[in-house]
């Protein structure tokens, strides 16, 4: 376990360093360090971008995990099942009604609409037959698709089409100092999810067990709903929709270590941050000096990992004592 942590953190640190150094402008030239340009690039652009990536990856992975616990289904995530599209609808409404409003106002409206959208999804899901688990993600996709179509329709008629790409296809190239700080709030919400990790794990044991263990089922569900919607809204407002992170990352961790969230939620966050960071780096390198949006890269790798998850059965390590990752790592 400790060795696994060491490897995970090492990868993350390596990725972070690479993210600070790689970009359109080559920081390895000596001259630009002398006139201070390198330092200002780091502070204004590279560092904010890197932090935004880490916060987005970690919080989206955790938001996916929490959503899976509250809807009792492993195949959902907020970006594809209505929360993300609702957040985009919120920004659209804000942009249309109050074009001059601050980022903060836009975010507030996006949060509210995202909350309503996620609550709508939960209400839809409750009516589905319990013995057909694959209905849940399908309904989610359809629901998210409908809201996405409404956003496109409204944007078309209000001549706001040029914004759609920035909301629907998340990317970090536009992140600069002063334009990403909302994501720290998503980070805070992720911490809050960690503090209530036991409760969310118990939700994953079903309603009966939750009540039996004295949980206020309604309250915890609502708290989860709020955490998921707000993290999603903040991400959509700042970087746009990044699909699959919330689906793929929690499923990898679950297959590997299970769902004792007190233990696995931090790992989920770290893996989310690492994978999004790697996707963004790949997007920066492949067609240098042009960039491929992180959502596209993660969409491709995410789909592959997801298919692999579906076809390869879960398997725990043979040794009986303490689980450790040394087997996979060395």
């Amino acid at each position, binding site marked *: 376990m400790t060795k696994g942590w060491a490897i995970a953190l090492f990868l993350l640190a390596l990725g972070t360093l690479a993210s600070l150094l790689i970009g359109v402008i080559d920081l390895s030239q000596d001259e630009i360090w002398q006139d201070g340009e390198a330092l200002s690039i780091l502070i204004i652009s590279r560092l904010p971008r890197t932090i935004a990536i880490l916060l987005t990856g970690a919080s989206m992975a955790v938001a996916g995990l929490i959503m*899976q*616990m509250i809807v*009792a*289904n*492993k195949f959902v995530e907020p970006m594809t099942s209505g929360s993300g599209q609702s957040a985009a609808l919120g920004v659209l409404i804000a942009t249309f009604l109050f074009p001059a409003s601050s980022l903060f106002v836009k975010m507030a409206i996006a949060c509210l609409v995202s909350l309503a959208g996620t609550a709508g999804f939960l209400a839809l899901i409750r009516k589905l037959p*319990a013995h057909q688990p694959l209905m849940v993600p399908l309904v989610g996709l359809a629901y998210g698709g409908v809201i996405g179509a409404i956003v496109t329709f409204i944007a078309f008629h209000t001549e706001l089409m040029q914004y759609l790409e920035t909301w629907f296809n998340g990317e970090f190239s536009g992140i600069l100092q002063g334009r990403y700080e909302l994501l720290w709030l998503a980070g805070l919400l992720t911490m809050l999810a960690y503090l209530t990790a*036991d409760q969310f*794990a*118990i939700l*994953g*044991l*079903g*309603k*009966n*067990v939750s*009540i*039996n*263990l*004295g*949980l*206020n089922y309604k309250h915890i569900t609502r708290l989860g709903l709020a955490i998921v919607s707000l993290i999603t809204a903040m991400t959509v407002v700042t970087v746009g929709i990044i699909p699959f992170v919330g689906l793929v990352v929690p499923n990898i961790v*679950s*297959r590997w270590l*299970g*769902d*004792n*969230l*007190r233990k696995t939620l931090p790992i989920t966050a770290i893996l989310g941050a690492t994978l999004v960071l790697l996707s963004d780096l790949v997007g920066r390198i492949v067609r240098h000096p042009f960039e491929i949006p992180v959502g596209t890269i993660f969409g491709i790798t995410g789909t592959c990992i997801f298919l692999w998850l579906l076809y390869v059965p*879960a398997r*725990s390590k043979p040794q*009986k*004592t303490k*689980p450790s990752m040394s087997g996979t790592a060395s």
Partner: protein
Amino acid sequence: MIRLSSVSHQIDGAKILSNISANIPKGQVTALIGPNGAGKSTLLSLIARLQGLEQGSISIDDLDVVTTPSDELARKLAILTQSNSITARLRVRELVAFGRFPHHKGRPNHKDLERIEEAIEQFDLGDLADKFLDEVSGGQRQKAFVAMAYAQDTDYLLLDEPLNNLDMASARNLMRNLTELAAQTGKTIVIVLHEINYAALYANWIMVLKQGQLIANGPAKEILTPQIIADTFGIEVTIHEIDGKTLVMHYG
């Protein structure tokens, strides 16, 4: 004591339980028996506040089930439901450990950890403790859920068909553990059983339900008569005493 007074329950207008008033004695093993669909699970879930109580009242000692805070009840009463579908992928030990949650609310102390290991021991789960629940057999999973309820260490324990999927020896082990628990620590155990001989051998008290009605409620010896069994299940049985134990012959 569990007091039920005038408890009725309906689902979509269909009467599931009608006007049940009964006391379930403290410190005893009570078997709840009756045909499929009689309302046994529904009654247990009402006692354990898993479903909202519509009519009548239920109290456990002096705690009213409807008004007592849920987390307080969780330290008084534990329920194992008939079937459990879980989303979270947990190891056996992790599942059992959640039984202690009502006591420690997220910060287990050494007493909690001891109780968890004891529960694992009691139900022979030692070798399986680090396996995931989706990697063990149906009966082993059932034992893990029973161990979780046991770890909760409440005065009242409601078990809905806990013998499902258990082999002969495990079933006997479970029933013995439960009777010992009641005798030694004064816990009250209510258990839904289909094999009537387990009720005959291990229960002090028997409650009989049929079509949502209370047919009988009393000491085991008084309830286990060919007449009541015929009225409830519609089959003829003979009752024998062998080595001081009651045996209900219902085969053949």
